[in-house]
């Protein structure tokens, strides 16, 4: 993988190491692939394309997706959100592989954890609590946590030998790494201890409260109102009984992400914000000792006519436009009398110039990333003229991902 192409050549920018996607998905030791990155960069499509390719190369693959576009979901047979992996039809199974896909139902996943960790009465009490309902159906943080929880469940079920997961469109891609630990840390927090004191110690709790506690409780009552505080206390006390279970699960998932069978792929579009997020992510994964397999640079603009530079193309378009002026020299392009000449050529040249310019800017951004992270393998996927919404389209992306020829 790390051929001499990584070295600096005559002062030119460093070429990145190429990501060998097929080696990654053909390696039976790879059990989990996590696609992460900021929103709108094509994570879901990448995850689905990798899952499909792996299945068609003989793996028992399962794609766990969080928020797919409607038509992409339909193409994979995901019409209902039922939290169970469904077999995807139309997959080439000659090599003995198979593809399942599922869409995450955040609330149901959360409900299931509660039901698994509390006795029926207690579980019913928690499920009915307004705080629980707000928490389990809101998007911030919970989705990340539940995605990781579901990943842990699927891995544990051991029905698939490769799980490809697409991470939630977090406000910041980093939220997702924090999610497994966040709930545990929260439940361990001082505030929780305080809130649970009254319920645990009954009326005698006043004795243990110092002035600070009293002030805080009174302030909380002031801000939230007594009822809210009471609901919060009930909820927290209920959660507290399941605390051990929650924490264990969060830590288990975290360890799973660090395990050798896990590979992270950071997905980015060649745009400043997306690549900045990708850089943060790469550094963070490194700090957490999470195994990073590489970067997928999605929607790169290449030109089949790259040998004609933007500057020359633009100059040529201008030359033709000058010739088109009524008193210019003018050469008939075969069109009828007074029709503007070379319209097609001028348009093609102008458009080509713009595309080369865009490509150059993208190249520059990608080089920034490679310069900062020279060891990260990169796979580039050329921008497609139309959106992907069927298996054929996913197959094309899978092929592009795997063929990173020079």
């Amino acid at each position: 993988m790390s051929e001499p192409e990584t070295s600096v050549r005559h002062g030119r920018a460093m070429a990145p190491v190429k990501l060998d996607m097929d080696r990654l998905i053909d390696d039976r030791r790879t059990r989990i692939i996590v696609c992460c990155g900021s929103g709108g960069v094509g994570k879901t499509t990448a995850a689905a394309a990798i899952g499909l390719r792996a299945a068609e190369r003989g793996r028992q693959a399962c794609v766990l997706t969080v928020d797919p576009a409607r038509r992409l979901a339909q193409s994979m047979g995901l019409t209902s959100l039922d939290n169970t992996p469904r077999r995807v039809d139309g997959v080439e199974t000659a090599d003995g592989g198979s593809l399942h896909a599922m869409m995450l139902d955040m609330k149901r996943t959360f409900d299931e954890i509660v039901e698994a960790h509390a006795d029926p009465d207690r579980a019913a009490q928690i499920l009915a609590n307004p705080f629980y309902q707000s928490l389990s159906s809101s998007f911030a943080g919970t989705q990340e946590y539940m995605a990781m929880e579901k990943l842990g469940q699927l891995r544990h079920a051991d029905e698939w030998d490769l799980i490809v997961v697409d991470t939630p469109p977090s406000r910041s891609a980093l939220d997702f790494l924090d999610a497994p630990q966040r709930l545990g840390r929260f439940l361990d927090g001082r505030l929780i201890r305080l809130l649970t004191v009254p319920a645990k110690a009954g009326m005698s709790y006043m004795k243990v409260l110092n002035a600070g506690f009293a002030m805080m409780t009174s302030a909380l009552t002031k801000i939230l109102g007594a009822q809210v505080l009471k609901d919060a206390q009930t909820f927290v006390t209920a959660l507290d009984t399941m605390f051990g279970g929650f924490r264990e699960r969060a830590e288990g998932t975290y360890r799973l992400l660090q395990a050798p069978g896990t590979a992270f792929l950071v997905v980015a579009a060649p745009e400043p914000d997306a690549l900045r997020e990708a850089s943060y992510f790469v550094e963070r994964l490194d700090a957490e000792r999470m195994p990073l397999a590489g970067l997928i640079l999605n929607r790169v603009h290449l030109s089949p006519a790259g040998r004609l530079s933007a500057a020359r193309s633009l100059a040529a378009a201008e030359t033709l436009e000058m010739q088109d002026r009524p008193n210019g020299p003018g050469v008939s392009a075969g069109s009828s009398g007074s029709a503007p000449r070379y319209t097609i050529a001028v348009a093609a040249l102008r458009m080509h110039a713009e595309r080369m310019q865009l490509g150059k800017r993208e190249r520059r951004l990608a080089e920034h990333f490679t310069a900062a992270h020279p060891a990260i393998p990169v796979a580039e996927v050329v921008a497609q003229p139309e959106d992907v919404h069927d298996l054929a389209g996913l197959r094309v992306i899978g092929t592009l991902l795997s063929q990173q020829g020079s």
Partner: protein
Amino acid sequence: MTTRDTDWDGVRLHVVTGKGGTGKTTVAAAMALALASAGRKVLLIEVEGRQGIARLFDCPPLPYAERKVAIGLGEQGAGQGGDVYALAVDPEGALLDYLDMFYNLRRTGKALTRLGVVDFATTIAPGLSDVLVTGKATEAARRRVNRRDDSHVYHAVVMDAPPTGRISRFLDVSTEVSGLAKMGPIKTHSDTVARVIRSPQTAVHFVTTLEEMPVQETLDGIAELHELTGDGIRAGGIFINMARPAILSRADLAAAASGSLDVTELALGLKAAGISDNHGLAADLMTELREHAQHVALQDREREELLTSGRPHYELPMIPEGIDLASLYQLAAALREQGAA
């Protein structure tokens, strides 16, 4: 001051949402520049802690304080634009602010923060922190100069809001909170916030590109807003960002898409411009032209789809060189020209 009519006269709080990657922050910033015409002060608010505004305006990270970041887009005959201020709101700062403003409890607030009350709110009841954040925006939109001068401090407030998938819940604060608090101060506060958000003074604008997923999310977002809040929260305009103009007539585009354009004509053009058609350059350029035509056709389909929502729409051009301060003013001018501000 100008008396020019815009599509959003009377709107004081512009909430700008959009799918990730569609340029929501850029459009919010351009909108703020466009609204800040002669003498008009505008506040641009960021709520997701990404410091996207500071990056756009090339200034140091924004604190929890209103800072001047730019001068609005000038206008012919009306001179230089007004001031654009910016503020990064985080739930913690908003909580302290709330305690200070309503209860004179700033010190207690700090103690609460140390105890992790904010963590508590964001983890256990995200609805509560949303109320605090939107509360800050509505407060700024309603703020008066002082007791004697009751004119508004800000002509308009523009909020770079959470993405489309989360916007309805984020704004529907009263429902979110009433599930938790049936009465009490937080309920009262959220009712006040909800009144502003549900008034004609607030409009929710959607930023999208002409691609399938963002368009679908935009339409879903508008529908969800309607579903969750009835006619309570008003969908504003649709801002089509990064639109690529068609460079050929419709007829030529159709021909390009179907591959029936004459490549020899293109080759002749290249020759006339002094470029030799080596290794089938003309054919390669024709391939590009076909891809462009397909792309334009896709854009047209998606635009049609957006128009079914019946919302006013505005188009902002793709800036191939990337967004800088100069291009923000260019986008602001485009918005003003089309009557968005």
